[in-house]
């Protein structure tokens, strides 16, 4: 099927939400342009799922290989799937500018579904910029697509992914040297308030317990309620020091993997000036959407973790829901069909997300990670420290945007992706203002670096 000049739907991101949205829309005959930054479909959760080896599949487990079906939907009739694409501008007029193989182009869509997923929450600990320190997600990506597993790594932080990664490393014959966990008994007691929701998601709960059992059987050392974490080394990570049970520990390691959950990737939704809220439970901003994923702009929907962290299964439902909503608005699906299709999807998503309040409370990030102090680097790109941000506030800096003028915070190539949440938290602490009042960095196109040549060669949408 040849693609029209102006597709009905432009879907950005080919993870669970984007793949499901594209596939659902194509099912009703809509023309879909599916843009993705990675070379293969699946997002980070199902990364490389089509080409992973038998050994990789055995190590990564059934919750990974299940993504094959969804990844195969890029072959669906009606979907123009473009991998290896960098989207660097999205307009409220439905225009999307992107580069592929060094060439830039613009396309105009009737409706846009943002499915840009999540980023690792920044874990600004002393030493987190040293070579050898990576995100847990990054180490898992190396297992999925790089065919590599970290040897004698120390896993630091909290959250389900930490256990999943640890159990996958056990399966790969490279158990982590230790788990340095920040969650406390107090976290557990608070989380028990939400046990009813957790029991509704009992399958996920059992999976989590199975992972922990696997880690225990592999005799991986676990330190709990850990505080005062430092990663030490001169030019690379050499050791992790921390306090657990009132004692100072030092563990040597050349690979340190950090995790404190994930947060929505809001670069595009922010650049569009869409409405955002601060989520007090998940401690991050997320764009405001209705239950169908509709954002504050009528031609833009947001599905999956990019709208608020709910996980891969919920993202898949959210993608289908967003596509049906968009198609109804475009007149490609009638109201009755929409309702009939969307109700079971909404129910399924509710069931998937029932465990979230429990997980959010149990694995709530500690203050030393949310709001670092002293010489800890906050903005990795420009090497702006926590003290620097506090000093800007003392000098009258009103919000994240002004920190750029004070000291280039958030102005490096990552464009605030790994410091935005932290800067908001520190300014909130220093000014006494609610994070929502403090706000976030203003994000502008180009969302990723593009060359002048690419810009110059740009033509109007076909």
């Amino acid at each position, binding site marked *: 099927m040849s693609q029209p000049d102006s597709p009905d739907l432009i879907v950005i991101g080919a993870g669970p939400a984007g793949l499901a949205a594209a596939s659902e829309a194509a099912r009703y005959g809509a023309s879909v342009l599916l843009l993705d930054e990675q070379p293969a479909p699946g997002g*980070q959760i199902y990364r490389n799922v089509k080409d992973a*080896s038998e050994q990789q599949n055995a190590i990564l487990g059934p919750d990974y290989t299940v993504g094959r079906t969804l990844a195969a939907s890029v072959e669906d009739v009606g979907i123009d799937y473009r991998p290896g694409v960098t989207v660097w501008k999205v307009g409220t007029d439905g225009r999307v500018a992107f580069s592929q193989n060094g060439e830039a182009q613009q396309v105009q869509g009737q409706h846009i579904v943002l499915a840009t997923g999540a980023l690792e929450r920044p874990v600004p600990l002393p030493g987190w*910029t040293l070579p050898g320190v990576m995100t847990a997600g990054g180490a898992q990506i*190396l297992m999925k697509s790089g065919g590599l597993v970290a040897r004698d790594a120390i896993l630091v932080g909290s959250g389900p992914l930490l256990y999943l990664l640890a159990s996958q490393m056990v399966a790969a014959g490279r158990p982590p040297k230790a788990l340095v966990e920040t969650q406390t008994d107090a976290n557990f007691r608070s989380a028990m308030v939400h046990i009813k929701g957790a029991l509704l998601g009992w399958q996920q709960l059992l999976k989590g317990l199975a992972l922990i059992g696997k880690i225990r059987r592999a005799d991986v050392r676990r330190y709990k309620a850990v505080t005062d974490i430092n990663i030490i080394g001169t030019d690379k990570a050499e050791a992790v020091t921390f306090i657990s049970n009132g004692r100072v520990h030092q563990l040597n390691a050349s690979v340190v993997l950090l995790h404190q959950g994930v947060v929505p990737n809001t670069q595009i939704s922010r650049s569009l000036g869409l409405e955002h809220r601060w989520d007090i439970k998940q401690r991050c901003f997320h764009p405001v959407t209705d239950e169908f994923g509709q954002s504050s702009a009528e031609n833009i929907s947001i599905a999956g973790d990019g709208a608020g962290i709910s996980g891969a299964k919920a993202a898949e439902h959210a993608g289908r829901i967003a596509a049906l909503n968009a198609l109804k608005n475009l007149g490609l699906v009638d109201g009755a069909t929409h309702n009939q299709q969307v109700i079971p999807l909404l129910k399924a998503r509710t069931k998937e997300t029932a465990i979230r309040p429990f997980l959010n409370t149990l694995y709530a990030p500690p203050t030393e990670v949310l709001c670092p102090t002293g010489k800890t680097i906050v903005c990795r790109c*420009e090497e702006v420290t926590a003290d620097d941000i506090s000093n800007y506030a003392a000098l009258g800096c009103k919000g994240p945007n002004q920190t750029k003028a004070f000291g280039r915070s958030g102005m490096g190539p990552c464009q605030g992706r790994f410091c935005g949440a932290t800067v908001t938290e520190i300014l909130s602490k220093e000014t006494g203002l609610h994070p929502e009042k403090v706000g976030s960095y203003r994000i502008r196109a180009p969302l990723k670096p593009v060359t002048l040549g690419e810009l110059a060669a740009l033509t109007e949408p076909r």
Partner: protein
Amino acid sequence: MFDPITPSTNANGQVDFTFDDKNVSAASGTTIAAALLAADQIWFRETPTSGQQRGPFCMMGACYDCLVQIDGVSVQACMTPVTEGLQVNRVPFSLPKEGKRS
């Protein structure tokens, strides 16, 4: 630091490239970042601010800490596949002027 999950890397064949003029062999189809980590290379650049050494952090194209230079242009090592004969260099603290202009 990192070990291959599959002991033999013959699935897609090998490619040879250079990193700061040193020869590196890698599994075809992998990224520069994964190839260098497999070769025990963990720092890829020096920061423009203070010259700190940095290496891969997020592995998903978001953090820009794994920048390397190819033909004088900085690219994300985690997003760029290795190819035969590729000449990859670390990004030095102080860029030569011609590097900045190219």
